């Protein structure tokens, strides 16, 4: 099988406007994407896709990348799967058959599971944007998990909130699997530290019209801290309504939500004083590459990028670096074997996350934590 075609496939458009005249010497690598681009989860799918596209455009803009002495450009072929696993499976089949994509990105665990049924047989890599641990546990070598593990957050979050507010916590995370896994881990840790979980339930943002009821019930138990999270905007609503109902304690914000996006809903950071969560990309001072990335992304898509865009962006770069190291743009196994090189060789100007290692089928790096104090985002040092 040859995935580097000289001509671009009829039904795909190159993601970047790079000069087409030069493609005579350059090959094209098709990169697949299947995710929700319509329906309720579309906003999420679009953001993940944007990150990938942006990376591809940058690489193409610089004339592509060189593998085995030959120049290649990237072409992102994206298909909508409406968040459904079977559609994701069908899309993947199509991407492999018609576009010969060596890598297929998908931003949901269901899609990953569906692809894992045949990715080893059909030899393609899954760029799995999911933190579902199971995708890495099933022993599927060709699955590359992009987001970092969230376990690292447990300690800093717990320490901070326990010290500042107290030991009673109520759980109100999103009802996704992700939220549930998070809760489980946090619960274990919180209790280990001598804390008490006084209320534990989840909110399904796809079905709930109003959170007053559940927040009332949570606050009835007089918690010191609320654990909230999910998509940023509804999470912000939960925080806001908790404040309206007189909650004075702190928030642990699950890493899916970003405090800067939440601010757009709450209006100011003041309402979120006492929150701890991941450092939003736009506020992070951790890497000199970030402000540049945020600016470019804003120009292109008109909004501040979050980690959905950022992680997929850097993920695309890592894959490219891995291809370079592997000396192949089509052999999934070879590329997989060089993922560590991919991580090590991330160009400095795109290193918006501090990834160091490729272990256990995913990337590992330093975690950045932020708290909100006096209406401002302040970085919190994470003790290793």
């Amino acid at each position, binding site marked *: 099988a040859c995935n580097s075609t000289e001509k671009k496939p009829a039904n795909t458009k190159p993601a970047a406007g790079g000069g087409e005249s030069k493609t005579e010497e350059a090959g094209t690598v098709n990169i697949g994407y299947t995710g929700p*681009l*319509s329906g309720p989860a579309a906003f999420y799918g679009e953001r993940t896709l944007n990150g990938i596209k942006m990376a591809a455009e940058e690489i193409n803009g610089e004339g592509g990348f060189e593998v085995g002495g030959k120049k290649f450009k990237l072409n992102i072929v994206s298909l909508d799967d409406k968040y*459904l*696993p*079977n559609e994701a499976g*069908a*899309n993947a089949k199509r991407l492999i058959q018609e576009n010969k994509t060596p890598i297929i990105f998908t931003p949901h665990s*269901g899609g990953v599971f569906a692809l894992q049924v045949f990715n080893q047989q059909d030899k393609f890599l899954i760029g799995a944007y999911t933190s579902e641990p199971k995708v890495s546990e099933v022993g599927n070598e060709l699955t590359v998990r992009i987001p970092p593990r969230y376990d690292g957050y447990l300690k800093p979050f717990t320490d901070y909130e326990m010290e500042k507010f107290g030991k009673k916590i109520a759980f109100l995370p999103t009802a996704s699997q992700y939220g549930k896994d998070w809760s489980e881990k946090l619960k274990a840790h919180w209790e280990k530290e001598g804390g008490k979980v006084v209320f534990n339930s989840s909110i399904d943002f796809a079905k709930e019209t109003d959170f007053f009821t559940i927040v009332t019930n949570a606050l009835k138990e007089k918690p010191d801290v609320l654990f909230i999270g999910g998509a940023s905007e509804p999470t912000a609503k939960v925080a806001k309504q908790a404040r309206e109902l007189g909650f004075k304690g702190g928030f642990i914000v699950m890493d899916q939500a970003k405090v800067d996006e939440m601010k757009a809903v709450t209006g100011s950071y003041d309402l979120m004083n006492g929150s701890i969560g991941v450092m939003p990309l736009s506020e992070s001072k951790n890497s000199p590459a970030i402000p540049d990335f945020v600016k470019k992304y804003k120009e292109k898509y008109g909004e501040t990028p979050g980690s959905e865009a950022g992680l997929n962006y850097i993920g695309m770069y890592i894959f490219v670096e891995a291809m370079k190291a592997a000396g192949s743009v089509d052999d999934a196994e070879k590329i997989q074997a060089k993922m560590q090189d991919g991580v090590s060789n991330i160009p400095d100007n795109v290193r918006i996350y501090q990834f160091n290692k490729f272990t256990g089928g995913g990337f590992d790096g330093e975690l950045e934590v932020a708290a909100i104090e006096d209406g401002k985002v302040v970085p919190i040092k994470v003790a290793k």
Partner: protein
Amino acid sequence: MVKVLNKRNIIIALIVFSAVFPLLTENNYLIHIMTSSFIWMIGVYGLNLLAGYTGYLSLAHAGFFAIGAYSLGILTVKAHLNFWLAFLLSLVITGLLGLLVGLISLRTKEHFFAIYTLCLGYIIYLVIDKWEGLTEGVRGLIGIPAPTGIGPIKFETEVSHYYLVLFFLLLVVLIMYRIVHSLSGRTYIAIRNSEDLAQTIGISTMKNKLTVFVLSTLFAGLAGALYASFVRFIGPDIGSISITFDLLTYLLVGGIGTLSGPLVGTLIIVWLSQYLQDFQENRMLIFGPVLTLLIIFYPRGLVGAVSAWNTKRIAKKEQRLSHNTTRIKGEPFIESEIIPDKKVKEG
């Protein structure tokens, strides 16, 4: 006579085509899509049997589809049963639940039945979503095995799976054909046309409706079980209302209450949406209106449109032969004058 021959020819042609289809293409993707359309077709036949022939529109069928899929998934993944035993049991489970749901829901009629089953379908979905101990909740069931081989036949490859699903589809079509062309089929159509009258000529409408309901849920469950072993991962979303809407759309585009409607409708929509993929998220801007227009202009689906066109042509021929003695009615669904009167009386 000509019409029957036509219909039969079309069916035979379709069967032949589907039998050689994998030989015509190397493209696994095409086979994959074809296989999944076959699975949907089976589900659509379930809906067609009930809605098309007894007039009861069930909006719970995605629920039964999911029950079939989850039964198979749970029995294989969690209880480690032999695949075919689990397959059989999943049909039994779907049938039994269908019986239960039928018993309560068939007491309602028309729109009530539709919305009642809509709610029942939603309950099924919620139960799957919430009952984590059994279904793994939103995480979904991973690692559902492919069908184990029967003797020398293995079902590991895309192509062999294709033939397995095709086999079940043909079985369903055969069953449908026989039902529709039997006394039972007439009985169901009688119930669709007027339940009160059917009852007074001695037909136990409840018993008949229940039989059909259970059989139609069985079709949905069969489709679900095949789906589970085909995609090998299932999540609660396969029980969501949008799946029912999809099935319904396939049915109506093809032609409700027709034998070949489910085949035609599913094939067209599934392939069309694959090709509209290039429009990405904006394809619904086209697909939505197209669907609506189709329903307005071809109320009996494509199959209905073709057969109406046929009758018209034949009628024209006859008219030419024997001047204007033939009376052709408009669309058959135009209510006769008698029906509104009845409505007045019964309030």
